[in-house]
């Protein structure tokens, strides 16, 4: 066992004994073979001395046990690092932000406390995974859908607290926005309920989000101000139908009007699924093609030398040749897939309305991409576990595997995920900026990329920087990642989420008025957790004794 830095060994040993008393000896892990499991499988620091490590782990099964562990840690000044299931791969996994922390593993708290079918909500503990809730709903034959992250093995609470997203209705696929009510253990062991949960005998804890007075739930996401032990979530009533339709446009500059109109359709709730885009002419496939029921025929030619030349010309600023190629081969420059959930008649009418609105784009044409009725038949459900249908999956773990399309497999990846404005101008600018940065920094040339559209009103680029067995290569990737954080900030863009290695760097960019936001966070931290025991360093928030003097 390794001791946390700066912690008196006797105090640590005493705390471990108290943890054992609180949760049972078998649920406190100090042997290397066990603490080794609390690592970041995709660590950007793979195999390096700075790789984050846990000194021990403790796995309580109830809120009372969490309170006892937190009280003991607070008394002895032991840093804890809270995880729900620890599976946010690409964003840090289960490794602590501050090496030597004791991982507070909440996996054993896996009770589904309530699922209300009539009003479509659930109350769960941190260890409940998307698969767990999906199984519960299926077994009880409830007409409800979950919105799951991709992959679906993680915790609803963990993903929501890290502000992850999914694929269905806008107010559901933003997982933090979908939550309603929390229970939190504070650093002194006190128990707090937010929203209507603060009312003893509350009858609307999971129905009315804001309660009375300041709405503080956001303080407990992407932070270290408390240990969240229960969360409510709004679910989605099982729709009668799902429909997907594709709009295709011919010209590069059509992207301006296309995005404007798709955004209008989404903000007006004419379309209510997560939009998706592609560019057959540029060879960019849609994100959803993999996960759809029936393979979508995406005609993306790759081996035509004429096309490669025309793409280069288009990227250099003259798209006319590529547009003409598209007309000859009936290939779109851009596409958008619009998705609709609801009664069959309604989604048909919504698609017709969307087509009417989008038809103002010259030469636009439309394709049906399928309609499905629910519940799905068993056979197709077995063949495709589709997050767009609220079905969790592990399918995307082909990522990184050695294959004909990926001859140099990686150990994982670190996601760089800047949020940008939802305009074509921003997309073109971001591509120019990323390409320039790649050249300047000696990174591999990035292809033109399209963002994803998980969040309403914004777009998000998600780039994976590979983690490999080569430490020098990983160092270069980290440097490039840090560099890109800076470049993004210079242009007014920032990551929606990042792993511990990069959390300080991103937090540093939110510097308006001499870092007034971070100073506020630190004030809250000092007030709620004066001994700095809860997840030191998470999202760049450090307790006073570990805080570096701000320049």
């Amino acid at each position, binding site marked *: 066992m390794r001791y946390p830095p700066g912690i008196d060994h006797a105090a640590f040993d005493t705390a471990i004994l108290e943890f054992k008393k609180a949760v049972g000896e078998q649920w406190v892990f100090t042997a290397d073979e066990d603490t080794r499991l609390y690592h970041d499988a995709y660590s950007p620091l793979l195999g390096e001395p700075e790789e984050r490590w846990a000194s021990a782990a403790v796995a309580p099964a109830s809120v009372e046990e969490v309170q006892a562990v937190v009280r003991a840690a607070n008394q002895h000044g032991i840093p804890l690092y809270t995880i729900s299931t620890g599976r946010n791969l690409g964003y840090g996994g289960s490794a602590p932000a501050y090496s030597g922390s004791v991982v507070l593993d909440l996996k054993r708290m896996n009770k589904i406390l309530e699922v209300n079918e009539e009003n479509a909500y659930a109350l769960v503990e941190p260890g409940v995974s998307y698969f767990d809730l999906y199984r519960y709903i299926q077994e009880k034959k409830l007409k409800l859908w979950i919105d799951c992250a991709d992959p679906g093995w993680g915790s609803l609470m963990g993903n929501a607290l890290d502000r992850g997203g999914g694929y269905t209705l806008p107010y559901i696929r933003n997982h933090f926005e979908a939550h309603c009510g929390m229970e939190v253990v504070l650093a002194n062991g006190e128990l707090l309920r937010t929203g209507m949960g603060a009312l003893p005998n509350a009858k609307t804890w999971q129905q009315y989000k804001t309660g009375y007075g300041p709405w503080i739930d956001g303080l407990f996401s992407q932070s270290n101000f408390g240990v969240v032990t229960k969360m409510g979530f709004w679910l989605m009533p099982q729709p009668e139908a799902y429909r997907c339709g594709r709009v295709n446009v011919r010209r590069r500059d059509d992207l301006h009007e296309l995005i404007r109109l798709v955004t209008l359709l989404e903000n007006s709730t004419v379309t209510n699924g997560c939009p998706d885009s592609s560019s057959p002419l540029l060879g960019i496939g849609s994100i959803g093609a993999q996960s759809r029921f029936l393979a979508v025929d995406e005609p993306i030619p790759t081996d035509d030398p004429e096309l490669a030349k025309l793409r280069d010309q288009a990227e250099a600023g003259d798209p006319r040749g590529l547009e003409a190629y598209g007309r000859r081969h009936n290939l779109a420059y851009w596409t958008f897939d619009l998705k609709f959930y609801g009664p069959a008649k309604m989604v048909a009418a919504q698609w017709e309305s969307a087509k009417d609105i989008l038809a103002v784009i010259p030469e636009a044409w439309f394709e049906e991409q399928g309609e499905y009725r629910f519940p799905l038949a068993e056979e197709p459900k077995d063949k495709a576990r589709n997050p767009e249908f609220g079905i969790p999956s592990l399918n995307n773990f*082909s990522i990184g*595997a050695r294959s004909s*399309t990926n001859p140099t497999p990686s150990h994982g990846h670190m996601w760089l995920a800047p949020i940008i404005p939802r305009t074509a101008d921003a997309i073109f600018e971001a591509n120019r900026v990323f390409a320039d940065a790649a050249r300047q920094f000696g990174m591999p040339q990035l292809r033109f*990329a399209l963002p994803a559209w998980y969040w309403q009103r914004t777009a998000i680029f998600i780039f994976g920087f*590979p983690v490999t067995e080569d430490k020098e290569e990983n160092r*270069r990737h980290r440097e*490039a990642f840090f560099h890109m954080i800076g470049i993004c900030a210079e242009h007014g863009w920032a990551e929606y989420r990042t792993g511990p290695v990069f959390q300080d760097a991103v937090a540093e960019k939110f510097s308006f008025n001499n870092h007034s936001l971070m100073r506020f966070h630190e004030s809250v931290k000092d007030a709620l957790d004066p001994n700095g025991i809860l997840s030191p360093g998470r999202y760049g928030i450090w307790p006073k004794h570990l805080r570096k003097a701000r320049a």
Partner: protein
Amino acid sequence: MNVIFSRRDFMSAGIAVSAAASLASVASVAVSAPGDPLGLHLPLDLPVPVDLALIDTRFPAAHTFARALEMRGVSLAPFDGDVTPVWYEQLDPVWRHAPLTVAGLTTEGALFCLEQLAWDHGMRVAYRGMHVVSPEGGTEHLLETSTHRAQYVNGRLSGPQPWPAQVADLIAGIEQPVSAFPSPVEQRSRANYRTRSRTQNDPTRLVSWLIAPKNSRL
């Protein structure tokens, strides 16, 4: 330097692998034993009962591996790239109640998932073999297990049978599997081999493995 990729590139790679693969399934002839409500019959003649073998049927090597284990009475759980149905329907319901020793010949991605899911139920990887088509012909192998079980990876893969069958023999012969992963490399016995036969032309790196209850006994 590896190429930086967008999330949609990831998805495309997954599609290409699936589309190129055979979707033929391996039919299990195993018959459930009496008193075996889960439909998993326990092989009687193995040093450690391998309860189930997971087979990614896209790869010919997996078919050979499956036949070799099936002959020893091991139940097969075929899947075609996406390990979700096998884990969700067969493994998870059992692992929630009791350990289930599982072997497999799959992609690394499938093992990556299963290993972490197994940790939550007190299971660990006790043996792992990497198998990749060699650019110089044949197949290269790296077999690894605990230093306390070195005999199971040393002196292997020299027989006349195809390597997947020999790997199945290896796994079926492991007595009292000792947890080997995750661990520093110096705590593992490793053996490299090259076999002459290629069981596939696909460059996908395959992995054979055994997940068994956590055991630190020597």
